[in-house]
């Protein structure tokens, strides 16, 4: 599963670029579908905590590089959220279609709440009520929808690179 760690860089790099260019087009109010979050979450659910944390770290750092927030901020929050999710839920089979949307919804809400706190600490806070209503809520909705195809696609990738037992 070492391949999974190396795959994280190109996949997440492309994801972050798409997240900052294409995803703003899919917007409800000020909320937009979070492709990066759903990909990292999917991988965390499929491959477990260790790989999920690595993907969260890499994805978060790349996101910070492109969004101008202090480097490591998003990474820190993503790492914490992915660790918490994997601790609570554990690994999920790729055929499971119920749990990923539920986790995506709850995870997005927690992710945003922690981000709001972190941004407030860094002096870039925004009104909590407005942000939850206009950003977090639509993002939760969009992520719940987005996780379905993303989890499916990541499941195929996970299956493709997973080491298999061979009989000698």
């Amino acid at each position: 599963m070492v391949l999974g760690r190396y795959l994280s860089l190109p996949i997440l790099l492309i994801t972050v670029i798409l997240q900052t260019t294409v995803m703003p087009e899919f917007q409800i109010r000020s909320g937009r579908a979070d492709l990066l979050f759903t990909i990292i979450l999917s991988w965390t659910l499929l491959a477990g905590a260790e790989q999920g944390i690595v993907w969260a770290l890499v994805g978060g750092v790349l996101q910070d590089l492109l969004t101008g927030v202090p480097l490591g901020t998003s990474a820190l929050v993503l790492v914490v959220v992915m660790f918490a999710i994997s601790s609570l839920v554990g690994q999920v089979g790729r055929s499971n279609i119920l749990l990923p949307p539920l986790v995506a919804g709850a995870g997005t809400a927690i992710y945003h709440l922690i981000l709001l706190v972190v941004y407030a600490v860094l002096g870039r806070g925004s009104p909590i009520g407005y942000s939850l209503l206009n950003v977090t809520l639509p993002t939760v909705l969009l992520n719940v929808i987005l996780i379905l195809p993303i989890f499916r696609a990541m499941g195929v990738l996970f299956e493709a690179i997973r080491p298999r037992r061979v009989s000698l």
Partner: protein
Amino acid sequence: MRSGSNRLIVFGVALFICIGLIALSASGLLGPVQNLVTIPVSLAQRAISGITRQISNTVNTLANFQSLQAQNEQLEHALVSFQAEIVELREVKADYDRVVALLNYKNKSDNAGRQYVAATVIGRDTTGLLRNITVDRGTRDGLAIGMPVVTELGLVGRITTVTSLSAQVTLVIDPSSYVNSRLQKSRAEGRIVGGSVSGTASGDLRMTFIPLKETISDDEVVVTSGIGGNFPRGLTIGQVTSSRLDDSKLFQEAEVRSLIDFNRLEIVLVITNFEPLDTSAFATPVPAQ
């Protein structure tokens, strides 16, 4: 157990890295590294963003097709209405300009003492054989036969028929019209007759019976002479464009161009305090048969 401790170790290391990155980033030490990574990624971002925007615009245009169609119809209706309004306002402005020009003419010191009635042209000769116009003023407004009709550009003609509400004006360009005139600079006298060589109604006239000894220069202004008592003296008729000997070789004649476009007359002024002289008393009596 091993998996759980591994997970914790990875988590701890990741946290450490994150906090370290935040600290280094806040201190500005990571600036060069950040630039190194950001620049190529930004280029890719820019390219993808451009493509995305184009696709998005196309999709939006397609999605908004129906509303755009409705909006287009609304705008077309609005445009038609505005165009009609513009036409109306242009007409008002044109009328205003004409009235201002006529008012300026009326207030000129040369015209002091003259009384005018403004009249709107309401009809023209439709056959093209006559050069007449009909105006919307009549005896009720003080108009009478023989009164001169002018605009700020010069003499138009004289009233030949009048009713209580309207009047017919025979234009100076009518073939039957003649006006005793004078060249303003050389003071040479002659007679302006309608129906020029070209025969159009645009404003071509002929000044005839100009004595041979007179020197006529082009662009000389022709005015009414007042001789004969049909018109007050000093009304502008037009400008000389060319001159030559007439057919009899006894006189000169000149082509005169009026500044008035008689096909586009809309508002005119009737000089109401001018009464043409009745010269019939001087006519040679016809012997009884």
